[in-house]
């Protein structure tokens, strides 16, 4: 693992991604199945923002669950969920959505237990409204992003990106369902963030793929999958670094959220994000990329390349790595292909292979 990372760092191409795609397909399939199964059987633990009801957080160092339950029973609310959180806080959730009763309970709690630090009461229709809006936003988001990727990259990549995003969301929802963590507005934000990360990551990967296929595709010496493999190897280090830099603030949210009082929301939020970041990076390299490779290999152009190379018996065994000397051939030496990256074309042609310890082309000048 460390050795692989070191070689990735040096810019070698040590990973045979297409081989891992098969493993990933099984893993993702299992993950999705588990998530959907858990969602279907257990459902989600909906917070009061979605189901309606009231929640209280009371600072009461000596309170016991039984004591609180007795208090609530007086208000015909004995069925409430009572949790003792760290920091001497009692959290109470009930399905009462009548403002008058909620206020009465609040008064009792203040009188008998201690300071009511937070109080939230949500009517029964609010959740539906929010959910409707969120679902609508999600659908519009998918459509617009699909259009955007189709325009900037290509529609097959739009398909891949959206499948990857959907994959991440389903897995995250599955984790929530399996762990029985309550779904709050913060959770929705976490899911949206996960979508954002995943999409961002996937687009960066795709852009690299397009650069590589644009540069080397015209030589017809490599299949799309091989070029994809090269691009993934080159972008892998970025993915690792970005995941680390994205995960570090989230990790600190997680740690601080665990220590600090009243920051339980932060902790749950951070947990969801952490899962999302890991799954998001994984899905860009292993789901989104694999899917696009599949789709592209079916195109006539790439199918021809494949059958030609296959005829020469070049495609047996592991994916052929593309050597640096070939990968770094400047584009000016290659036949211009239609979907070339819009890089700056004004660069002067340079020799493909430079002598060792090459000097800069221009004599050094002191600039001062």
């Amino acid at each position, binding site marked *: 693992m460390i050795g692989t990372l070191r070689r990735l760092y040096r810019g070698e191409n040590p990973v045979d991604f297409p081989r891992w795609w098969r493993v990933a397909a099984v893993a993702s399939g299992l993950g999705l199945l588990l998530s959907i199964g858990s969602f279907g059987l257990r459902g989600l633990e909906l917070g009061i923002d979605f189901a309606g009801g009231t929640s209280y957080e009371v600072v009461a160092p000596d309170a016991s669950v039984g004591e609180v339950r007795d208090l609530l029973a007086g208000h015909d609310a004995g069925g409430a969920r009572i949790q003792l959180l760290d920091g001497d806080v009692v959290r109470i959730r009930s399905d009462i959505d009548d403002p008058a009763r909620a206020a009465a309970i609040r008064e009792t709690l203040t009188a008998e237990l201690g300071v009511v630090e*937070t109080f939230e009461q949500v009517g029964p229709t609010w959740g539906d409204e929010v959910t409707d809006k969120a679902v609508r936003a999600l659908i519009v988001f998918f459509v617009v992003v699909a259009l955007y990727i189709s325009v900037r990259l290509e529609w097959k990549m739009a398909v891949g990106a959206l499948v990857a995003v959907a994959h991440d969301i389903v897995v995250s929802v599955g984790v929530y369902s399996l762990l029985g963590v309550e779904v709050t507005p913060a959770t929705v934000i976490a899911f949206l963030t996960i979508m954002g990360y995943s999409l961002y990551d996937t687009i*960066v990967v795709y852009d690299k793929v397009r650069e590589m296929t644009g540069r080397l595709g015209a030589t017809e010496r490599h299949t799309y999958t091989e070029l994809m493999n090269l691009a993934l190897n080159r972008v892998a280090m970025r993915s690792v670094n970005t995941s680390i830099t*994205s*995960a570090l*603030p989230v990790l600190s949210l997680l740690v601080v959220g665990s220590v600090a009082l009243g920051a339980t929301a932060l902790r749950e939020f951070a947990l969801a994000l952490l899962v999302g970041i890991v799954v998001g990076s994984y899905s860009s390299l292993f789901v989104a990329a694999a899917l696009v490779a599949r789709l592209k290999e079916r195109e006539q152009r790439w199918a021809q390349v494949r059958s030609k190379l296959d005829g020469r018996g070049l495609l047996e065994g592991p994916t052929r790595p593309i050597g640096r000397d070939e990968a770094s051939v400047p584009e000016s030496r290659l036949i211009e292909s239609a979907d070339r990256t819009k890089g700056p074309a004004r660069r002067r042609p340079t020799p493909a292979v430079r002598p060792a*310890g090459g000097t800069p082309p221009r004599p050094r000048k002191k600039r001062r």
Partner: protein
Amino acid sequence: MFRRQVVLLTTILVVSVAAMVLTLLWGNRPLLGLDLQGGVSVRLTATEPATEEMLDQSVEIIRNRVDALGVAEPEISRTQDGVMVALPGVDDQERALELVGTTAELRFRPVCEVLPAAIPGTGGSSGTSDRSAEPFASCDLVRTGTVRPATGADGVTVPEDDNAGDFVILAGGDDAATGDRRFVLGPTVLTGEALEDADADFIDFRWQVGVTLHGGGVGIDGFNAAAQRCYVGDASCPVLAGYSNGLIAIVLDGEVVTAPQIRAPGFERDRIVISGAFEKREAEDVALALRYGALPVELVAENTRVVSASIGEDSLDAGVVAGLVGLALVALFIVGYYRLLGLVALASLAVSGSLLWAIVAHLGTQSGLALTLAGVTGIIVAVGVSVDSNVVYFEHLKEDIRDGRTARSSVDRAFPIAFSTIVKADVASLIGAVLLWWLTVGAVRGFAFYLGLATILDLVATYCFMGPLIRVLAHTRWFADRPGRFGLPAAGAVGSLAATARRQELVT
């Protein structure tokens, strides 16, 4: 080319430093949301379909009530089917809930005296309003000074002392009929419970307000008892100079809505017509006010949220600490990995951070846009995205140098390609942020706003600061000589066959 980079770099530095200086000079500070400083938020929904106008009116009325609480930045807005009230930092949370939630009581009081409007700042007496009087107490008690109604600084009774059984001094509303005057009023003789309905009618070519009362004691009989006294000019409801009969004031929310003269000793039917020099709109307003209490529609609290100040502070602390720790960890990692380039990335983060701070502080102070916990998380997330822009570029740079280019040529070539990647990815984030802001409600909106803002600033910082700075650095000899300092491989060395072979020997 080189000059352009220097110009860009200077501009962005000047802009961000100026932004920070101005923020400090103007004393702009981010406005903290409810969840970060404690407070109350209530979402009220109308019990029946309401027009936009009615809701706007409700917003106005609630705003007036809330003003008494002295909340710095009350946020009261019309939603699709109701009113949203957010009172960050409100001290007396109980009272805030009460004020927002209840519909004020409608009271009928006989008028003892009509005074001109007080000059603000004069007068004000503690009064003796604790001596509550019977209904129909004689106005002479006030005239002779036996009872002095409690008044505040502007010569009218403050809401706290506006008890039903007291003599009070209340001001008229904004309209011509009652405005600019103060009314000395006797104890309440009838409340809004007596009222069944009210509407504006066009009778005898004039706009009038028709009032329907319930039958029985709390209704038409109670009203007639008062009307009888006022018609004859009893001591409890004297005939004032310029009038032929006594007046009964209809008071709402401590404001005299109208004070009609009683022109008949009793009303046979349960319908009373208030006639006067009403404009159509005035008649409608009075009818509305009578019908719904203070608010033109009945509003019920659909969602309520109360956060104590201490929890708010804790959340803020947790957010700040988490942010700082996270930032420190990112800094360590990125400098450890990319060396001087890592420092460039941090500087770029500082540029976008200072701009973000300036904008958030400006919006908080000028437009009352609050920074919530969701917003803070949006920003923390954006830190990740922002650093990634740098990583994308740096990795591209490395690739190019490994491919055999010199550091300097790699810098010029890699930036446009990397930037195009960054733009593609950032635009996708922006699309998400804009859609979320547009289509959702509540916390998600705050998150979307700050995520979008931070993403735009990331693009600015990348294009105007990070890119140019590295290009400028690349022109120094220092850069060309020691790429290792920048976390870059030595130029050209990797690309050669000989070097590859050498390295392979080392690896195996």
